[in-house]
């Protein structure tokens, strides 16, 4: 199968949905002529024109609010928030408006909108441009939260998100934009709420998502080669709704669970995962504490060495896996 990058996969998903459904449109800062800060929407303006590919002023609250209003009146907006850190600038629109309007209005309206937002560290952009803010928004009923790890999933999940009648936050992984993978040419979606098992294993389970998936897989390979232990690596893909069954089944199978994410540990989404495991029947099969290996509880520092040191690495994941086997 042909290989394309994660960024191209997202662009294709956008383009195909824009072609398929005239209700879909796309707006954000510098998304049109500039093609988006990370180039994801390059070329869309040429095909779809300035009415459907809209540059906005630097006004995140207006972008988000306008998306809500458009979604309530027959359109299916996709918006880009240039860095996921900036959802802080439209947090009310996201968490109090997009998420709750349907419920508060007794189901009178759907809220079909997608917020694309690049997340993660590793670009030398320091504390306000490098966060993994999923925990800010996973305790907000009404929202769905997606964090794809491969080009295939990025395309399929984005298409599913655009077709979903609920607000979906689509957390793109900056450092994955240039990674390549197989992506079918025919139309397909990846349903929201289904984890993917990236590696079978029977000795322990790794629960992870986003750009940490690749590191967990590397660490698992290393463990297999050096220690003869087989780690199962579950890529959650969607955080809300969570594929609880897959999580519990894997934990039950292996009896040892490591949770890995880039976001800071305290109050991070890993807590939810630990609670799901430790609160379920899987508990009775556990042979070891449920471990988390997450980002340090610090903002992301600028210096590249420091920056790399505050998130899990293949080394630290491998070490945590070994630890868990003891």
């Amino acid at each position: 199968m042909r290989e394309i990058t994660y960024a191209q996969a997202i662009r294709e998903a956008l383009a195909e949905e824009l072609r398929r459904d005239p209700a879909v449109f796309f707006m954000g800062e510098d998304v049109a002529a500039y093609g988006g800060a990370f180039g994801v929407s390059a070329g869309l303006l040429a095909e779809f024109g300035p009415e459907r590919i809209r540059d906005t002023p630097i006004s995140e609250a207006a972008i988000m609010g306008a998306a809500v209003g458009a979604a309530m009146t027959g359109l299916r907006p996709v918006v880009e928030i240039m860095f996921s850190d900036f959802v802080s600038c439209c947090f009310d629109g996201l968490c109090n408006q997009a998420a709750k309007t349907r419920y508060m209005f007794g189901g009178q309206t759907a809220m079909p909108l997608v917020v694309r937002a690049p997340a993660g560290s590793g670009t030398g952009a320091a504390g306000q441009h490098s966060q993994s803010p999923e925990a800010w928004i996973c305790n907000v009923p009404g929202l769905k939260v997606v964090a794809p790890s491969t080009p295939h999933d990025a395309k399929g999940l984005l298409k599913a998100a655009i077709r979903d009648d609920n607000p979906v936050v689509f957390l793109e992984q900056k450092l994955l934009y240039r990674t390549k993978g197989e992506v079918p040419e025919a139309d397909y979606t990846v349903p929201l709420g289904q984890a993917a098992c990236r590696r079978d294993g029977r000795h322990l389970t790794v629960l992870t998502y986003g750009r940490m998936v690749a590191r967990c897989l590397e660490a698992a390979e290393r463990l297999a080669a050096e220690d003869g232990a087989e780690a199962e690596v579950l890529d959650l893909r969607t955080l809300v709704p969570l594929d609880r069954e897959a999580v519990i089944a894997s934990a039950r199978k292996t009896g040892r669970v490591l949770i890995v994410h880039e976001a800071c540990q305290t109050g991070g989404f890993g807590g939810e995962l630990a609670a799901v495991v430790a609160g379920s029947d899987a508990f009775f099969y556990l042979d070891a504490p449920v471990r988390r290996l997450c980002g340090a509880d610090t903002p992301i520092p600028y210096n590249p060495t420091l920056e790399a040191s505050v998130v899990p690495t293949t080394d630290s994941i491998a070490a945590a896996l070994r630890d868990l086997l003891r």
Partner: protein
Amino acid sequence: MSTQPPHTTTTDAPLPPRDTLLRMFLQMSQTRCFEETAARLFTQGKVHGTAHFCIGEEAAGIGVTAALEPQDLIYATHRGHGQSIGKGMEIRRMMAEFLGKATGVCKGKGGCMHIADLSAGNLGANGIVGAQLPIAVGAALSTRLQKLDRVVICFFGDGASNEGTFHEALNLASIWKLPVVFLCVNNQYGMSMHVGDHVNVPDLSVRAAAYGIPGWSADGNDAVAVWQAARRAREIARTQGPCLLVANTYRIMGHSKSDNNAYRDKAVIEQWKARCPIKRLRAWLLERGLASEQELDALSARARHDIDDALAFAEASPDPEPAAAFTDVYA
């Protein structure tokens, strides 16, 4: 483009047709009666939560909605009973919502801070001051992209004009020239803060200048003047792009039921009570011979009856099923 003397009823602009005027009188009376009833329900302990009353501000809501076409959309405020009645929301279902009943317009889940009726073109009321402004811009964008002939009227208060969303929304609408009227009901208070303390301009409509859009003020206690200004605003929005219309009025009641008005002069409240917009419209209609005492009395009685009927309906309605708490979270 910006400051002008507040618009009052003028003969330069068309006047509302007679049936519109009578409907306005009826709806203003219904609104007043709805709120007086609602206030009584609080005293009787029959509702929990809070409510924000627009008593004395009815002209600023219904003068506007009466100037709209059926396809137009509004986004109401938390003080939106008049706006909602004016836009044609079924009063029974509004009262039922207030009482948290299953027959409520939001199934009893939104309450009076979130009354919405999309079928009547009412995109709702919002509990977050100022949040409605960008949402209304989105509805106007939708109007443009779907090539519809309608405008969106976004109500908000003087206090809301200090939220960042006001600025972002007006700017966005101005560069995209969207069909939206920003309708500021300046009742002179943001909760306890007087407009003279929370902004540094004598007339809120000057804020339009920051976006290069038309902005002007109208006497918000003169229903006919508001109607005329709203007609003009609607036409501007439809043909040119956004504008900012400020209806200057006064909040007679406390901000919400728990407010004892300790921060303001009771004499001023009395002065404004005397400027009751319903009495004023009544006098104007009689003066011009557009309606007789009998006709107007009948409309007042009908308003009373409609509210009694709505209350009876609401009180007889069932509470939501327990399971209702868990539905409508996702589509």
